[in-house]
C-alpha cells in the first residue's frame, strides 16, 4: 500500500500536470509567434515591388537605392534576411520606421496604452451588459428580458461600430454635450469609443452566456441541486453559472483580443491616436518595418490573451488540470 492511490494521487498529479499544462501552452505560444512572424516575413517579400524603390522615390540614383537597401537590409540573400528577422524578433527589435525614423518599438509603446485602455473599457462595458442579461434571458426564458436580449444581440451584430460611433458622437457630444468630441487625455474621452467598441462584442458574449446557461441548467447535476432543496438562487448562481462561465470566459477572452487588434475603425471615428491608427497609416505609407512590427506585436498580444484565457479556463474547470 506504499503506492499513492485515490484522491491523494489525483491532487498531487493534478498540480504537476497543471505546471506541465502551463508549460505546454507556453511552448504553443512561442510556436504561434514563430509561425506568424515567418508568414509576415515571406508575405512582405512576395509583394511585388522593392521597398527600397518606394522609399527612394522615382528620381533616386542607383547608389541611393543601394544605400537604402543596405539600410533596410534587403541587399543580402533572403535566407540571411530571414535569419536576421528571427534574431530581431527574439530581441524584440523591429528596427526603425521608414517614414519617421523613430524606433518601431517606441512608436508602438507610445500608442499601446491608449488602445489597451480602450479595449479594457470596452470589454468591461460588454461584460457588465452581456453576462447579467444573458443569465437573465436563460433563467427567465421567453420573458421580457429574454426578448430584450434577443433584440439587443441582433442589433449588436447588425450595427457597424463606425456608424454607432458617429451616432454616439452626434447625440452625446454634439446635441447633448455630456462627453468631449475630441481628445484622448482623460477617461471621459474614451467612454463613447468604448461603448461603440463594446456594443457588438457584448452581443456575442450575451448570446453565448444565454446558450451556456440554458445548457447547464438542463444538466443532471441541476436535478441533484433541486433534490437537495436548494433555493433557485443557489441553483442558478452557485451551481449553473459557475459551469456556464467556463465557456463564457473563453469567448470573452477572444473578443478582448479582437478589440486590441481591431479598434482601427473606432479610433479613426473618434480621432484617437491608438495602435489602430498607427498601423493604418503605416499601411498607407508602405512603412514596412512598422507593418511587420505591428503585425507581430498584435500576434504576441493575441497569443498572450489566449494564454491568460487558458489559465483562467483551467482554474475554473478543475477537469482540465488533469486531462
Amino acid at each position, binding site marked *: 500500500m506504499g503506492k499513492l492511490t485515490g484522491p491523494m494521487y489525483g491532487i498531487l*498529479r493534478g498540480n*504537476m*500536470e497543471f505546471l*506541465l499544462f502551463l*508549460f*505546454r501552452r507556453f511552448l504553443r505560444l512561442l510556436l504561434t509567434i514563430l509561425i506568424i512572424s515567418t508568414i509576415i516575413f515571406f508575405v512582405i517579400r512576395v509583394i511585388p515591388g522593392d521597398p527600397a524603390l518606394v522609399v527612394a522615390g522615382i528620381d533616386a540614383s542607383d547608389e541611393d537605392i543601394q544605400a537604402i537597401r543596405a539600410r533596410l537590409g534587403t541587399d543580402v540573400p533572403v535566407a540571411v534576411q530571414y535569419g536576421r528577422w528571427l534574431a530581431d524578433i527574439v530581441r524584440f527589435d523591429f528596427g526603425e520606421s521608414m517614414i519617421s525614423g523613430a524606433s518601431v518599438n517606441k512608436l508602438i509603446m507610445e500608442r499601446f496604452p491608449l488602445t489597451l485602455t480602450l479595449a479594457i473599457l470596452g470589454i468591461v462595458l460588454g461584460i457588465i451588459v452581456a453576462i447579467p442579461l444573458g443569465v437573465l434571458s436563460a433563467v427567465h426564458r421567453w420573458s421580457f428580458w429574454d426578448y430584450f436580449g434577443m433584440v439587443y444581440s441582433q442589433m449588436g451584430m447588425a450595427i457597424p461600430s463606425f456608424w454607432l460611433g458617429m451616432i454616439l458622437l452626434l447625440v452625446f457630444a454634439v446635441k447633448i454635450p455630456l462627453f468631449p468630441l475630441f481628445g484622448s487625455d482623460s477617461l471621459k474621452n474614451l467612454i463613447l469609443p468604448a461603448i461603440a467598441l463594446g456594443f457588438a462584442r457584448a452581443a456575442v458574449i450575451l448570446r453565448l452566456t444565454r446558450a451556456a446557461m440554458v445548457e447547464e441548467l438542463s444538466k443532471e447535476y441541476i436535478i441533484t441541486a433541486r433534490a437537495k432543496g436548494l433555493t433557485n438562487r443557489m441553483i442558478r448562481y452557485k451551481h449553473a453559472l459557475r459551469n456556464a462561465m467556463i465557456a463564457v470566459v473563453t469567448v470573452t477572452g477572444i473578443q478582448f483580443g479582437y478589440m486590441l487588434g481591431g479598434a482601427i475603425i473606432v479610433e479613426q471615428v473618434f480621432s484617437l491616436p491608438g495602435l489602430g491608427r498607427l498601423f493604418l497609416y503605416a499601411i498607407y505609407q508602405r512603412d514596412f518595418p512598422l507593418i511587420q512590427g505591428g503585425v507581430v506585436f498584435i500576434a504576441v498580444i493575441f497569443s498572450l490573451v489566449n494564454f491568460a484565457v487558458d489559465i483562467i479556463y483551467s482554474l475554473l474547470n478543475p477537469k482540465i488540470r488533469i486531462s
Partner: protein
Amino acid sequence: MEKLIELKNINKVFKSHKLISVKKDDFVAVDNVSLDIKKNTVFGLVGESGCGKTTLARSVMFLDPPTSGEILFDGKDIASLSGKELKLYRSRMQIVFQDPNSALNPKMSIYRCMKEGLVNRRYPKDKIDTRIKELLDLVGISSSYVNRYPHEFSGGQKQRIVIARALSMEPEFLVLDEPVSNLDVSIQAQIINLLLDLKDEFSLTYLFISHDLNLVSYLSDEVAVMYKGQVVETAETEKIMKGPLHPYTLKLFSSAPGKNSVELFEADESYREGLPEGYTYFPPEPDSSLQLIDIGEGHSIGCYALNG
C-alpha cells in the same frame, strides 16, 4: 471438439502518446491471454468494466490488431493474411455491440443498411431484396418495415436488425459484446432465445462478453474470467459455477445479485484453494508474471510460481 479460434499469448498495449506527460507508463489492456474457442459453442468472457474484455474482442476481430500474439482462425494465422484474404476472413467473423443506436446509421433506412453489406460482398443483385426479407424474417422483424428508419424501432428491434445485418455476411463466428445489457428484462430473454436459435440453425460460434454472471452461466459452454487484462480462471461453465477457485472469481460470484447472501468475498493471503504445490494466487514479487495452470479437465487458474 474442433477449435475455431485459438488465441495465443495475446497482448494489447496502449502506448502513452504525449510528448510531455506524467503518465509515462504504457497501458497494458490485454496481458498475455491464451484461449481456445471450440466450434459451435458459446464462450463466455466475464469481468468488470475496464478489465480488457472488449479490447480483447476487438483484437480478435482484428479491428484493433493485438500488439503481439497469434490469432488462429480455423487454423490460419490472421496476421499472415494479405489485405484481400483478411477481408474475406473478416466477413466470416462479425461483432454485435451493446448499443444498437451507435451501430445503425440513423439516416439510413433498414433496407439500405442491410443492402450495403450485401452489395459489399457482391451478393447477386437480383437476389438482394429476397435475401434482406429472409434475414429480417429470421430475426423476427416484419419485412414490411424495411423502409423504416432506426428511430422507428424499439431497442430490442434495433438489436435484432443489427444481428440480421451481421448474419448477412454469413459469418461462422460472432462476437457478442454485452448485446442485451441495454434492454429490458422481458426483451433480453427474447434476444437471448433468438441468439441461441440462430446458433443451432447456422452452426455459429459465439464469444459472449458480459458483466452479468447469471446470463453467462445460463448460455455459455465455457467461461473465462478476466481481471486487469488477464484471464484468471477458465473452465467449462458448470465446473466453474460449481467450484470457482480463483479469489477474484469468488469475489465476482459473491457479488452477483439475486442470492440471499450479501457478503462480498475477500480472500486473505492464506487462501490457496485448488492450488498445486509451489504456487500462490498473490504475486510474490511486484513484477511476478501470472501463469494459467491447468488443474485438470480444462479447468485453469491464474497463479504465480513461488521461487521464480
